[in-house]
């Protein structure tokens, strides 16, 4: 590839510690931003028959770099808001640089992951943080247009890229 990377040298942040929650067994738990955050950066625990437990982290990978979105500070707990009454989730993410053309791919990854791992009755809005992207409006429009998302996912190349981000083991 002769074009080179869009952001060749991103700033990598340390992973933050997750706040431990005390669970009350007797009442219903509402969906909260932390839930979504956990899902997006879920620590997958697979157990292996006979051999024992194997833990591995399965965060969403950046399309360009072998870092997770969390490490690149693209997403944070504060950038997720949930309104359970209306059944809406708003996720604002911050691309690493202003003219990042990968912003749509990142948004698409988030959408696919949430579609897979979340109660279907929530409406998910995914937006770029205000002022963080040169082409903010069009990216937002593209990400929240059902038809265009569906079309994007039908494109095998794009689908493959998204799948790689979601299921890669490179981290």
């Amino acid at each position, binding site marked *: 590839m002769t074009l080179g990377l869009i952001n060749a040298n991103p700033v990598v942040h340390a992973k933050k510690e997750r706040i431990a929650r005390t669970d009350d067994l007797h009442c219903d*738990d509402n969906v909260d931003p932390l*839930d979504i955050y956990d899902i997006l950066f*879920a620590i997958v625990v697979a*157990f*292996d*028959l006979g051999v024992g437990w194997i833990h591995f982290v399965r965060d969403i990978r950046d399309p360009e770099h072998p870092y997770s979105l969390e490490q690149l500070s693209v997403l944070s707990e504060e950038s997720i808001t949930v309104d359970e009454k209306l059944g809406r989730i708003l996720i604002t993410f911050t691309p690493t640089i202003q003219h990042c053309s990968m912003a749509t791919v990142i948004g698409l990854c988030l959408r696919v992951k949430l579609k897979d*791992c*979340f*109660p279907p009755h929530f409406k998910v809005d995914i937006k770029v943080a205000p002022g963080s992207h040169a082409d903010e409006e069009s990216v937002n429009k593209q990400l929240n247009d059902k038809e265009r998302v569906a079309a994007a996912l039908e494109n095998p190349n794009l689908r493959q890229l998204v799948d790689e981000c979601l299921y890669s083991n490179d981290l």
Partner: protein
Amino acid sequence: MADSTQCVEHIESFVDSSTSPAQQAASVDAIASFVKNDTLTLESLVREMEMYLTTTDNIIRARGILLLAEVLTCLASKPLDNVTISSLVGFFTERLLWVASDGGHGDGEIGGYGGGPSGIGGGTLGSRFGWRRWPWVSGLMAMGVSIGGCGWPWMVGRGDGESGGCGGGQSGSGCGMSGTGFSWTQWPWVSGLVVVGVPIGLVELKTELQYGHELAELCECLGGADWKALRGALVGCLALVRRKGNYGTVTDSEARAIAESSLQTLSVQALGQHDRKLCFELLGCLLERYSDAVMALDDLLVYGVCEAIDGEKDPECLILTFHIVEVLAGLFPDTDGPLTSFAEGLFEILGSYFPIHFTHSKGEDVGARREELSKSLMLAFASTPLFEQWAIPLFLEKLSSSLPTAKVESLKYLSYCTVKYGAERMAKHVGALWSCLKDAIFTSAFALDAESRNSMEFQVNEIATEAFLLLRKVILQDDGSFLSLILGDDDINTVMNSLASFKDYDDIPIQSKERLHAVGCILSVSAKASRASCNRVFERFFPSLMDALGVSVQISSGGSRRDEDHAISSKLNFGAFYVSVNLLAACRELAVGFDEVSPIATFANETWCLMLHSFSSSLTRLFNRTLVTRMHESTWVAYVPSADRVAAVQLWKSKLRLEGSPVVLGIWFVESYELELEKFLGQLLFVLINLRYNFFFLSWTDFPLFFAVKGLQILATFPGNFLVVPKSVFEDVLMQLISIITLGFDKTFLWKMALKALVDIGLFLDKCRDSEMMKSFNIIVVERIVSLMSSDDFTMPSPLKVEAISNIGQTSLTYMLRTVEEFEKTISANLSGLYVHGNLKSAEITVQLLEWYSYKVLPWYGVILRRFFLLIVPSCYFSLYQSAGGFEEVPLRFSVSVWDQIENSTYSSNKFQEKVSVLRFSCVVFLLTPSSIFCWNLETSDVHLCIIELASAFLVYWENDCVIKCLQKLLSAMMMAMKHAVGSCLADGQSIIVDKALSIVLSSTFFPMKDSIYSTPLVGLKELQLTLDLDSFSSRDEWVVSLFASVIIALRPQTRISNIKVVVQLFMTTLLNGHVPSAQALGSIVNKLPSDGTDASKDFSLEEVTNLIFSSGVCSSCSNGHLTISSHTNDGTETSVTHLRGDCIKTRALQIHAVVGLAWIGKGLLMRGHEKVKDVIMTFLNCLLPGGNDGALPSKQDPSKDTEEQEVLRLMKSAADAFQILISDSEACLNRRFHATIRPLYKQRFFNIVMPMLLSSIVKSDASNTRSMLYRALAHVMIDTPLSAIVSEAKKLIPVLLDCLSMLSEDVLDKDILYNGLLVLSGILTDINGQEAVVDNAHIIIKRLIELVSYPHMMLIRETAIECLVAMSELPHARIYPMRTQVLLAISKALGDRKRVVRQEAVRCRQAWSDLIYLSCSFFLSFVRNFSLYVDLVFILTRIIFFWLSVANKQGFNCIKKSEILKTERRVLPSSAR
């Protein structure tokens, strides 16, 4: 005489280098055993081996010598004569010398090469060729280099941080590890040690292999040196030197010869690791055993040792090295000995190792640990005072290093060496030592950098610990000059003078807090060190401290109390307060220490004693006052609810981080940390010094309070001999503490502290046994506490009361006896209060007291009893034992007194009974009222009245419910206490209780069939039923029977029950009334009766008892009950229908009770492995199976038989549940605590018996009811059987288990059984042995799990089901792939679950299952994408086919010609190239 050929065989086998090490070791053993058994003499062996020992072949000769040496090692305990030994010594020493001379030869030769114009790094070369094969090569080369002119190799690269590199020859490429500390490489002795030169001709254009040949030739031409024999010579010498006195030893002159030859001629550092180790062992052994002989070598010895150990880097060798130095220094203790001149050099060698820095990763298996190394180095340093002039400055220098480990090490070494070097030598270092130590304490101990706080904590705390230890040692050793330095120190005095400015703890800036704390610790350690130091510290600071606190000298306790109050009422000076408590604690520790050494101590005239004495009462008052005032003003954060506490901790942590504050002294008081706290309180000052825990004080205002309680405790626990604290003060303290206990119970934190202080005082008194103080304690504390039990004051919460009583009671046996005595009184008073006056209030505390009694007191007695029998109890207890009539008496007395009470009471006609019956009546009214309202009361518009009636009825009902619940709670607590009490009695005591109880039971009013029991041997079911009506049990009767059952349950197998027949009859009667404890008692009886009837003392054998039970109808009633009923219906008329229905319900109820009873009896039999249990199982199966119940199941059309059907179902259900009783563990009876006979593996046996029966019944039965009940029984059995048994049968059981699960998921009430069943399934899934069965049944398992994922009634079931699904995703893909869509669908529903845990689990599960798709997809995609891989695969496949065909060809299956295959191969190949 052993067969010489045999011997030669063994020798050959050892010498042959191709045999395995194990074989070689075996041949050594064989030869050694020949010699040991005298079948072969040593001489003949040597003669036999002559050829091997003298041959010109180097390798064989070396092996021969080694064999001889190894054999000698094995003969350590075989007597040998002196001639043999001396000839052997001569032989081996000669080898050592040969080695040396050959080595010298090598030196010269190779030196030429080494000095050549260009060289190459020997380290690299060495590792390339594998030095182990030619260990001596490196030696040679090292020598070569040295001749070449670059210094002795062993001087190079010592681990002192300098670069270990060294040029190899004039223009050689230097190679050496830069030795920072000790980085051991695979070839430790190569790195940084040897730089070798080889001729340029060798370097150029030659392969590694050629190097090898060249080198080998080179060595050969060096004159056939005997290097290889070195190992054998060393082993041989070592074996000889190590010989014990009785078996013939080396003489002194021979030992000297060995030492001389090895020291003079061996260049140890040039050898391989193992050889060096042998050398050091030899040296060490010589120094230890033949010290006189080797001492004569004088300078040569010391010089040789220096040379040998210099530059050593292998940890195992180093330990030996350090030990050698230690022994050597012990040999020459004089200052004018040969060691003096070498001391500096020796110290230089050793000093470079300090501090030990060990970079080995933990995983590697090394022979030496860091601690061992460090310790042996410390011993070496301390071995001679000659090292002092260099060692102490070195330690002090390292003490100021920034590395925490270096600090700790230096402090440890200083502590040890200070004592060893002696006060005289240390005197000149005192000033430097104090300033370094002060810096260490002031800075590193308390200043923590916020970022690295967590990782540093431990080391920092260790520094403080070590620093204070050192301080103490120095003070103890020094004659006082050190203490003068401390007392006159500017920093300390500044802090002490500024105490006045520290009024309140909150106002003190953090830095001053650190200072204050450090000074407090320093002073306390100084005071603790000795009497003299204590005096000086007190003289210097105590008066000013007292002034600061506003306390005046006051000897009589009357005096000027008012002035003092005035002084104290001003704001407390915290700084002074803190330091004084620290000092108090220090002198108390000192006093206690002396007290242990000399019981009658005469230290009362010491200055500090006098001072303390004069201030003690005022101090007490000060503490009291602080407590009182503080108690009101402090805020108790400990009261905030648990969620807020977590928030509070977080807040504190963040605050700490912000302020970069020091280790915060304080306490974090949450229930979960209580244990830590206990530890903390117990040894507060120790902790203050150590700072091992990171406690958080919730509120700073608690701090003075804490110290006030602590101060009181210290004052109260001064040993009596010192008479420091007058009695009045002691009593004041106790009064203050007890008043907190009785009044301050709303302040949890303070209350606990006070209780802890009292317990400590109690324990202290129990230890020192001061009669005066004990008397006061007894009167003030114990009596007060005990009176809490019986008081009618309900303001203090009863759990706290019980806690106080229990803690104080456990401090001493005397107090425990007293509390138990009071306990018995209280229980009887409360019981009578409850029953005579209907006083429910005392029930709560009674229940708690009973629980305390059964779970705390009795186990405590058990421990004391055990100690008593082991004779490790203080002698004073023996008199107590006698006075109490044995400790066993306590539970016995309790049981007997309870029975006495029951005997004397006339509860049956008391008020309470009336009350209960009234309540029962109103309850019935209440139940009837609703229907009446709706039927006719509405019509008469009398609704108002009705509602009032209803409301009052409801109130009464509610109250009644409370009463009954309360009574039941009390009864169960009483039963538990009775069981535990009886259980802890011995057999004799138990029979007394049984006799007493039985006599009371027999005389009871409810027991009318005494006569019938005596007259007829067996009572049928009908009769039993007639003699006792179901509801005729009065409250008292229930108590009597329940308590009697408890007694029987807890009996030991040896205890004899008189009149056992009556007992059995009685229990069988009550059992049919649904009284479960009776059933348990029967189970215990059959479990514990001796199996043989020959024992004359038993009037009834097991056989008779079981026969009695099984023939009496309990058993038959289960299965035959319906028959009697059906006969009733046959001849019943229209009028008798209602009667019949009632009768039938009653009979069914009776049957259910019988089933439950039989289950307990069966459990007793099962646990002892009795055959009869099969009958029981068959009975239950009969209840379950259609054969037994078809007749009873009425046709659907008849509405009157609906209830009958319900009843039959109930019966079947109880029969199914009986299996649970049979197999599950019970807390209430038949366990180890109640002395049950338990046969090992009884559960597995039961499983093996029952499982086939149930399985075949399930196959046979077609009625859905029956099937579901059978499944239920099966589920019970599977749940309680150990998993390993289940897994081994997994193939058969999984389908059945899945059916069970689906059946159980129908009823909400079965959710617990369902959950347990699911756990069994998950156990099989995760077990490696169950995997095959799981794979076979994967489809149905997944189907069932998918159903359970949406189980609405229990979160745990949903969660576990999803977890199981995750586990299933690990199965072979081909097996589970078809199920993925179903699973994903089910999981997508679970994603919206109400509970977060389930949602999270669902996400994981989804991930696992969608990975399945992704993996298969990606495999396909990558397959397509990587075409070259594809081609490779085809190529490989072709090769495999080719191989297969070639095999087939050989076997005669000539299907395809070879050429064709080759063609295919050729066709494929170009595409791969593409």
